[in-house]
């Protein structure tokens, strides 16, 4: 009972004015808290919008529309003039076969213009697809077989629902007769959506439906490999020197300040350094992944040095003193004891630095890795492009189908980054020691 009377007396004691002021202060407190939470929620919803917008545009890049056509592999076409050698088979006009098949499929299409748009419903890459098939299995020559050919990008977009049916024909990317052909094929069950392996296995192309990211992935791999091979040893060695050996003098101070500043230099400036140093002075080949790797290595170096220094500093002095006390030299102490103990931290920092390099675009634009490159690079001096630059190039392309490809490529890039960062977190969790 005393509790209630207590409260009552307090209420009586408190003046109305004070209660109002306290209420106001508490409301301000609540508002402030909601403001903070709101800021976090806005930031998170921005992230969610970004991911959802790209995910919803990109997931359909992983499937592809195909048409089933009955193609007669006419020996007269595949072996022109009776020549059955490999170059002749490779050079044969498979487009003719596909056009014949399309005519046979739609016999009532006669007008020239109509025929041209009919031939356009399968991809320009379909003839290559047919060629590969014939080269792999020459026994099919002369037979009539049914094959699934890649559809053109417009047909693909229509099948995926990006081109709506109920729009005036003039405002639509594909015309009424094309829709009619599509419906005919669909009614026969001659259309299908399959997983787009080509997206992961082929290089860039002007035709969105056959463009792939494998060339860019290989280019990225070479570039990051070079970056790692240069930046990791140099970074770790600088960190060891600065933490374990460097005397405290002017030079060391300069190096320290310099590393911190270098970490904040805009990436595009490193691109210009790459142009000046590696292209104009050293005459490395343009667009090669070795130049990209070197440029990114200079950019990643400060990140690696800073994280490696932190990791080395975290190793307690007792370890060093014990090693020195047992007669190890300072270098033996550093390389046999301190370095292995700080390796997990160093590797974590390195992976984070490399994942930054993997997503970097601007410096690579400077050194000419923006070229249109169809071939998969075979080594580090071949002209190459990397995944982010490929994304940039595709984002610039006007075709509607490239929006999907760009988003798809972004999803792949993000998957790589998530993988690398997860690896870094895992490494930290598993090996990091608290001293």
């Amino acid at each position: 009972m005393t509790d209630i009377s207590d409260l009552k007396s307090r209420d009586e004691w408190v003046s109305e004015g004070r209660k109002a002021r306290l209420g106001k202060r508490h409301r301000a407190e609540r508002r402030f808290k909601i403001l903070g939470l709101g800021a976090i929620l806005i930031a998170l919803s921005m992230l969610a919008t970004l991911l959802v917008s790209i995910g919803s545009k990109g997931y359909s890049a992983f499937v592809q529309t195909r048409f089933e056509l009955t193609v007669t592999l006419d020996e007269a076409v595949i072996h022109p003039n009776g020549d059955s050698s490999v170059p002749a088979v490779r050079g044969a006009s498979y487009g003719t076969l596909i056009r014949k098949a399309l005519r046979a499929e739609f016999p009532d299409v006669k007008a020239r213009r109509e025929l041209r748009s009919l031939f356009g419903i399968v991809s320009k890459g379909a003839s290559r697809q047919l060629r590969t098939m014939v080269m792999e299995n020459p026994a099919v020559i002369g037979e009539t077989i049914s094959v699934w050919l890649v559809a053109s990008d417009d047909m693909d977009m229509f099948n995926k629902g990006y081109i709506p049916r109920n729009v005036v024909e003039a405002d639509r990317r594909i015309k009424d007769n094309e829709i009619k052909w599509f419906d005919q094929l669909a009614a026969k069950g001659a259309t299908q959506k399959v997983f787009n392996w080509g997206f992961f296995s082929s290089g860039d192309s002007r035709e969105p439906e056959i463009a792939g990211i494998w060339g860019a992935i290989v280019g990225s791999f070479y570039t990051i490999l070079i970056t790692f091979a240069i930046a990791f040893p140099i970074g770790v060695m600088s960190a060891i020197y600065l933490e374990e050996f460097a005397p405290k003098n002017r030079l060391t101070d300069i190096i320290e300040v310099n590393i911190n500043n270098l970490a904040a230099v805009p990436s595009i400036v490193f691109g210009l350094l790459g142009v000046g140093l590696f292209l104009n002075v050293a005459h490395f080949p343009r667009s090669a992944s070795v130049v990209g790797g070197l440029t990114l290595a200079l950019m990643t170096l400060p990140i690696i040095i800073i994280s490696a220094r932190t990791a080395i500093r975290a190793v307690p002095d007792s370890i060093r003193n014990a090693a020195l006390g047992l007669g190890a030299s300072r270098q033996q102490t550093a390389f046999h004891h301190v370095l292995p103990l700080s390796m997990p931290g160093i590797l974590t920092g390195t992976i984070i630095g490399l994942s930054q390099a993997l997503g970097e675009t601007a410096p690579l634009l400077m050194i000419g890795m923006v070229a249109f490159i169809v071939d998969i690079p075979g080594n580090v001096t071949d002209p190459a492009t990397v995944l982010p630059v490929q994304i940039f190039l595709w984002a610039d392309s006007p075709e509607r189908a490239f929006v999907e490809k760009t988003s798809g490529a972004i999803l792949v890039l993000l998957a790589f980054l998530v993988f690398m960062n997860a690896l870094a977190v895992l490494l930290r969790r598993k090996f990091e020691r608290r001293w």
Partner: protein
Amino acid sequence: MSFTPLIILLLAICTAGYWFGSKKALTIVPERGQARIGRPHQFGVFVVIWGTIPPVFLLILWSIFSLMSGDGENAIFDQIDQVIFPVLLILSTVLGCYAAITKIKSGLRTRKTLEFVVYSLLILASTVSVFTTIGIVFSLLFETLHFFEKVPVFDFLLGLHWSPQTALREDQVGSSGAFGAIPLFAGTMLITLIAMVVAVPLGLFSAIYMTEYASKTFRAIVKPILEILAGIPTVVYGFFAALTVGVFFRDVGSTIGLDVVSESALAAGVVMGMMIIPFISSLSDDVITAVPQSLRDGSYALGATKSETVMKVILPAALPGIVGAVLLAVSRAIGETMIVVMAAGFSANLTANPLEAVTTVTVQIVGLLVGDQEFDSAKTLAAFALALVLFLITLGLNVIALIVVRKYREKYD
């Protein structure tokens, strides 16, 4: 000269040297009164070092020489490059290894040599970053001076008109080639300002909530998710800004009767701000956590609520650190390239209206340098001049920020 077989051969010679060296080390009998000698592998490495130093030295000399002599396309040069030089390299390796092996005997102190070499390598590695800075400054400065020979400094820094299309032919019309960079600086500042208007309040309030209000679990979950924003490649933000945000602002503008271009400064700025949020929030997070607990306790003891403590005690105490964080964020926003390349325009408008298209320094650098270009036209040289300005501004901002943060740290340490 084909490089790979030569390197394989040199490595093979060194491997042989290592093997012979360590074998020979095993045969040494320590003289009386002498301490135990080093382990065999130390002798092996000793031989390898003597086998690698001469060819590396020669290689450096040779590459400097061939750079100095320029494009020496004559036959003698080729002859030396193709035949004599590789032979020299191989000979020097063999001789180095041989000399080292003959030196192996009792009383040879290998560790000293090894440690000297390692120590030199360490110093060499730590100067790479200094040389990078020097390289940046020189490569920019050199081209910028060339540029200022063609375009006066004041025309560049104070000119109001930017149209870098120089005439390809003498008689071409409409391509005067004006290099007044003020519109670019203005555009950069406008976009940076928008980015900061988005990022500073959001980042700061997130940091305050995280440090002062949030539970441990909330913090452990939300903080890494926010950091994802910093890990997303800028090209992805650029695509998002150009395709989603720009179009969204344009549509919103047209419904409320405003004329918003789809390449508006607003879209680029907002997306850039989004990218910078985690940068500001994690830096201010550190700064706020570093404010001593005693200040908070004192404030609570006087009856202040949490928000009053934050506003009247913690923020003033943490202000220098927060200013430092904002400066670093500004320098990052100024140097950001891909978002503006993809979402802002290339045309240089001198305007303060965020609904119009502006261009930035970084966009112009990309525009001027991408594609095949002669490296001596005013157009490409302008890119280097712009980059030098960019470098100096970001450097200045960073130095100020670091000084501010350092001063602040000293106060509470």
